[in-house]
């Protein structure tokens, strides 16, 4: 292990040494995101304009955000951080911050002020949920269904997932517990406001798993956000959970016979974290990029490619039409009042505390 470490460290040194530019900023950057339509929107709205301004910079994208916490832990243990900027969900950012794996961010100093003159801190407001989190978007995890496979009664209730009689056929659900556990309890009769209290107890966790047990052999478990739209398009599943922007892409851009359910969708933030312990030149480049990529206009631009709401208040008025289709984006945002009639706000602090516990149980249950 010692030797491996030394080898890795030397490699890292040589790479870093070779990358120092005249301006003391590294010229290459590895950004980690979720792949698919979402990553695409980031490339279009952030990195392509940035690369146009700085032609010397090469940006490579990695699609490992689903395993970001584990991989950052492993990188930290090996003493070699290969990522420069990582896109994570709110709860994961708290976990990474608690573990000292993400860098603390001084919002007002490092990020651009709002275009309307407000300070960055005011502009981001409630979305600054941890000291390390640089918010980008508001998204929701929701359910899509095949319009041609549900008969005359398209589902309007989240519990349709558990209703094998009315909607027979396979479902696809996230291979990780968040959203699944909440929905299971909700459909098992737990009141919305009590869900996290129940889920904090071992009995509550078992209860959620027991509910999921009823559809276990009818479920395909996905690991990437693009899986469910693919499975729906193939007709492999009758319904499945995924992020609302992915469903929007499948419906509006690819004209698939898919419908979207706006009921008890899990509202959540997504944003950047900068790994702790980056060398100075790489850090300088990342900070420069982040300042650009999270300014008012860029966040609003991203909404032209995917239906996620910008995290800055000042970006909201700038959200316009879809870049290619020319349709209004606002009605497709998870924050639109018509969509947000029965939202379920994810409790990040709960998931950052309980993720390890529930993951262990959930994975053991899956393997059974």
């Amino acid at each position: 292990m010692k030797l491996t470490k030394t080898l890795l460290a030397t490699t890292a040194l040589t790479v870093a040494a070779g990358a120092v530019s005249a301006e003391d900023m590294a010229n290459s950057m590895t950004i980690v995101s979720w792949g698919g339509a979402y990553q695409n929107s980031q490339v279009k709205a952030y990195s392509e304009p940035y690369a146009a301004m700085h032609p010397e910079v090469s940006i490579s994208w990695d699609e490992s955000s689903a395993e970001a916490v584990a991989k950052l832990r492993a990188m930290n243990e090996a003493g070699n951080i290969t990522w420069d900027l990582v896109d994570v969900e709110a709860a994961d950012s708290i976990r990474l911050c608690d573990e000292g794996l993400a860098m603390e961010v001084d919002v007002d100093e490092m990020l651009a002020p709002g275009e309307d003159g407000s300070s960055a801190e005011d502009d981001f407001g409630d979305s600054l949920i941890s000291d390390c989190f640089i918010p980008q978007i508001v998204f929701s995890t929701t359910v899509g269904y095949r319009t041609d496979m549900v008969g005359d009664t398209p589902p309007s209730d989240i519990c349709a997932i558990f209703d094998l009689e009315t909607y027979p056929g396979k479902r696809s659900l996230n291979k990780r517990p968040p959203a699944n556990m909440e929905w299971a309890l909700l459909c098992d009769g737990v009141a919305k406001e009590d869900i996290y209290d129940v889920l904090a107890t071992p009995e509550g966790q078992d209860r959620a798993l027991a509910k999921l047990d009823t559809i276990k052999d009818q479920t395909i478990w996905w690991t990437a956000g693009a899986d469910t739209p693919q499975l729906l398009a193939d007709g492999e599943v009758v319904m499945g959970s995924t992020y609302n922007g992915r469903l929007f892409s499948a419906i509006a851009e690819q004209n698939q016979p898919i419908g979207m359910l706006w009921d008890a969708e899990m509202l959540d933030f997504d944003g950047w974290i900068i790994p702790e312990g980056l060398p100075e030149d790489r850090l300088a480049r990342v900070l420069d990029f982040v300042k650009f990529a999270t300014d008012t206009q860029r966040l609003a631009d991203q909404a032209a490619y995917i239906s996620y709401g910008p995290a800055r208040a000042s970006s909201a008025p700038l959200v316009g039409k879809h870049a290619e289709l020319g349709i209004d984006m606002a009605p497709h945002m998870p924050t639109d009042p018509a969509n947000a009639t029965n939202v379920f706000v994810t409790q990040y602090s709960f998931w950052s505390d309980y993720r390890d516990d529930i993951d262990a149980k959930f994975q053991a249950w899956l393997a059974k």
Partner: protein
Amino acid sequence: MTASTTDPEKDAKGPMLAADGTPLKKSLSRALRVQKLRALALVAPLLIFVLVTFIAPIADMLFRSVENQIVSNTMPKTTRALGDWDGTDLPPDAVFEDAYYDLFVAAERKEHTRLGSRLNYEMTGASSLFRKSGRGLDDIGEVYQDQFKDLDKNWDEAEPWAEMMGSEDWLEKEAAWEKGERLPKFRLRDGVEEMLPRTADQYSAFASFTHNEDRKSLLKEEPWSAVHTALYQDLSTRDVSGYSGPHADMLKAAAALVASPEFETVDFKEGFGEIDKDWLKPAIWRTLKLYAPKYTSGYFLNSVDMKLTPEGIEKRPENERIYLTLFKRTLFMSLVITCSCILLGYPVAYILSNLPSRQANLLMILVLLPFWTSLLVRTSAWKIMLQQQGVINDVLVWIGLVADDNRLAMINNQTGTIIAMTHILLPFMILPMYSVMSTIPKTYVRAAKSLGATDWTTFWRVYFPQSVPGIGAGSILVFILAIGYYITPEIVGGTTGTFISNRIAYHISTSLNWGLAAALGAILLAVVLLLYWAYDRIVGIDNVKLG
């Protein structure tokens, strides 16, 4: 050499000599040694390469299956104190005190979450408990910090603390320190340790953290609240009236405050209970005591669905028992895959070896073509073939064998894994079979037939026994490859068609339970070696031919 020449001194004629006059035996062994060294030097690059890149990492990884230093390293005082606890009811108050100080430092270093994750492998709930406690511990210390601060705001300043705790010598160096230089090692003032032992201890811990991790001067950083807690403890038990060093008045005023009845205190046990009531249950303390040793059998027990408890080794609760099932499933499915490879591969190899070489070569390319195609591509192709709206199901529906609303589930289950893996591993079966079969002289078959044997007898009594070494070689290859297969079951296996290797991969890359992954890997390795040994005893490894 005969016996008489092996002992030269007894030999009247003296030792047999080489041309240069040295004893022949010596000169011979020298020549041999040189030869051996030369041979070793030739293989050395490979040997070192294998050692460094293969054996050493494996050994290092396997070592993790018993390593358990994290508990005693993160909570040194607590684990030591728990050694004397009998494990019934709750540990004594002193243990809570040690746990407070240990956890406080761990939380500042952000190591408590790792310990929480480690203990969570043994006791679900430990991870959230430690994360919450990391945030809640400040509440205990702040009670004291605030009271001292209200008395004299110097108690919340960096300099007075440093002047009181540090030696003159060190203070001078610290004051002269500039950014970028090495920070001078902190030294306690003489007598402080005797007067305020806990405070000295906590301040030293704070000093080492500030110097080594934060790289800041102690003259700039005000101490954290654990130091104030320690000060309260010291002042409530020790007499400081004789002290005359720096800030003596401040310290004496604080002592007076502590002695006054208005001074508010927090019991450590209650404080912990307020953070989470699980601290007031014996379970977490037992787990800590149980996993305090530097080495543990916990991971290996976990891999066979057992658990270490204070009462001895027990089975895990029903819903956590998964590994034995997975081991059995892996062995069973590997066996099924090996058998189907034999059934499918044997006729192909037979035809290959009996065709004229032109046709045989063409067929050989057909066998090898998938072998050269990317594994991922072949697996993904099976996904398209096997899925419910896939090619095979479509054909079956079209023929009318299967109803449209009742399509076969051939993927994301065991069937999918078996089909895809049989296809992927088939060349490993055909190739050794073919090379063995092509060495079987055709004359034997002709001879058998000319002596009146039927086709079947000829095959079964003459041909087949000679092809068995090929089957053996193919089976070993396929079986051992199958047992450790990861990517295909991951893609097409769903939840019921996954192998133990998928679980190992999960623990390596997702849950980061490397200890458990190492233990599972060690067991898998042992099983393979055992099977190899059994095979050697039953069939004999000499009978395996690759060509």
